[in-house]
């Protein structure tokens, strides 16, 4: 399937990305809550190369989602740093701009806005990057067509099935042409058929666009399918 919105589109990731060079690097990440009484991450070091497909798994409360949030600039570490292409997030790289242009998030609960139609849910991500209105709409339509949702564009989230909602969320994550796709339990709310379909879509996107993809999952089948599998337990990387 050809992609109208590829990595070479006008709002794709800035700067050169060559496979094998580090796109994300975490050094000594610590994340604590309740004034240090609870530690979700206890000194995590990880390097992710451009174009890599990495699965992160671990039991509930192991810190895998926290690590994803820190890598995606959704949260800041209590200690340690995250570097995007060698520049530190939150210092050399503005977190809001990083989230809007360099990363795309996919969540277990889809997190679509209930008052917006599918095509508008995709456009809402582009409102932050000052694209022209007609360009936003064209791009959203192209992405939803790519997701096989051409007949569901004007439906509201409550009129879509769970699988369709997640496909809208994937289209939204791709809206600004990010370099990295971060998925937090993307199949957690789906049945096995839809899970397989969503993972197939994600694999296709990565291969066609050469994107870096990090998937947090507790499903072994998904974790083992990734070329690289990071296991995390009690806030530390096991392997």
């Amino acid at each position, binding site marked *: 399937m050809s992609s109208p919105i590829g990595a070479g589109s006008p709002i794709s990731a800035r700067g050169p990305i060559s496979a094998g060079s580090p796109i994300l690097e975490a050094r000594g990440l610590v994340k604590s809550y309740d004034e240090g009484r609870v530690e979700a991450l206890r000194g995590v070091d990880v390097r992710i190369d451009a174009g890599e497909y990495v699965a992160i798994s671990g039991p509930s409360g192991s810190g895998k989602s926290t690590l994803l949030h820190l890598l995606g600039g959704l949260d800041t570490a209590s200690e340690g740093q995250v570097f995007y292409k060698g520049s530190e997030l939150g210092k050399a790289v503005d977190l*809001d701009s990083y989230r809007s242009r360099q990363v795309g998030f996919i969540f277990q609960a889809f997190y679509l806005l209930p008052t917006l139609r599918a095509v508008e849910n995709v456009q809402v991500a582009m409102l932050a990057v000052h694209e022209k209105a*007609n360009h936003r709409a064209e791009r959203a339509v192209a992405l939803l067509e790519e997701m096989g949702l051409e007949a569901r564009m004007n439906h509201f989230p409550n009129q879509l099935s769970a699988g369709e909602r997640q496909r809208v969320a994937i289209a939204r994550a791709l809206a600004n042409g990010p370099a990295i796709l971060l998925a937090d339990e993307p199949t957690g709310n789906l049945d096995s058929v839809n899970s397989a379909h969503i993972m197939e879509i994600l694999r296709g996107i990565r291969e066609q666009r050469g994107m870096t993809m990090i998937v947090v999952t507790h499903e072994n089948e998904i974790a083992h399918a990734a070329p690289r599998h990071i296991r995390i337990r009690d806030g530390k990387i096991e392997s």
Partner: protein
Amino acid sequence: MASQLSFTGFAWRNLWRRRLRTLLTLVGITMGIGAFVALVGFSRAFEHEWLRMYTSSGIDIAVVQSNLLSSSIDESLSAKISAVPDVAEVAPMIFNLIDLTPEVNALVYGWRANSYELDSLTILSGRRFHDGAPEILLGDLLASSLGKKPGDIVPILGTNFTVTGIYHGGTALEAGAVIMPLDQMQIVAGMEGKVTAFHVKLRPLPAGETQDEYVKRVSAALESMLPNARAVPAAERAANNQLVGLAHSVAWGTSAIALLIGILGIANTMAMSVFERTREIGILRALGWKGRHVILLVLTEATALGFAGGLLGIGVGWGALRLLSTLPQTASIVSASVSPLHLLESLLIAIASGLLAGAYPAWRGARLSPVEALRYE
């Protein structure tokens, strides 16, 4: 055809999702702006009518009591004022707002029969009154609402007055008023030997002096001659007489309370809206929306409420003024005309109210941590 999402379209969807709450908020701000348009519009029109009346009568200066505790001044000062070389004519007068019937109240003026102020009125039927007689002139608007004509009797504060004529004046204050002899007014008002003010008409403007300089110079001369009196230029007197001052105070006070209620309504709606949308704001932040985008969204919603409430309020306020200008109880003092500047001012106040009310909720929304907001249940 796929719909295009704009920033304002997104704000509109957010407002429309809670239709009842949005409509109730609109009612609140509409009432606030409606009250402002009607009351402040009325008080300004009232002031404007006074100014027009002074101008059409040729009044240049009003001499009034300088003591704030007293609103009357000795009639005997009339001779002293007349003796000032620049003074052409002096008209001692009394005015008051009096209930003529339980439904109709009107401005009642007490003038001397030879007052130059009568010259600006057109007698439509009958004749002028005589000093010392219980006679009155009725403005055409008032005569019409009372159903009176020359020869009819109108009781005022327990005394029966004969209508001697119907006149037409250029302002609502004159068209809806009663004019009676000054001595009769002093009796019914219990002000024997006293007047409310002396209306002074100056001689023609001397060469080498502007009208403003002329009025100020004569005013200063009058004040130095009359230690307990104030000489006020007519324009200033129009803005500061007791009735106009009272109208301004009531209008601004009532409007401020109504506007405050409207602002609190918007603030409450926006605070509730931001609270309910905590997770959605987290989603927007996760998508890269900056704090200022969230502020802009919330302020757009609040301003839209203010703007819509402002437009509706202007309609309501204008409608109220038109209604008041036709009612017999208020027709003599209410003009239906509202200046475009007042309407623009009302709309700007409505928009500013929205911005003010939305400021805190917007700031709160922008400060939400994306990850905390996403976790919010």
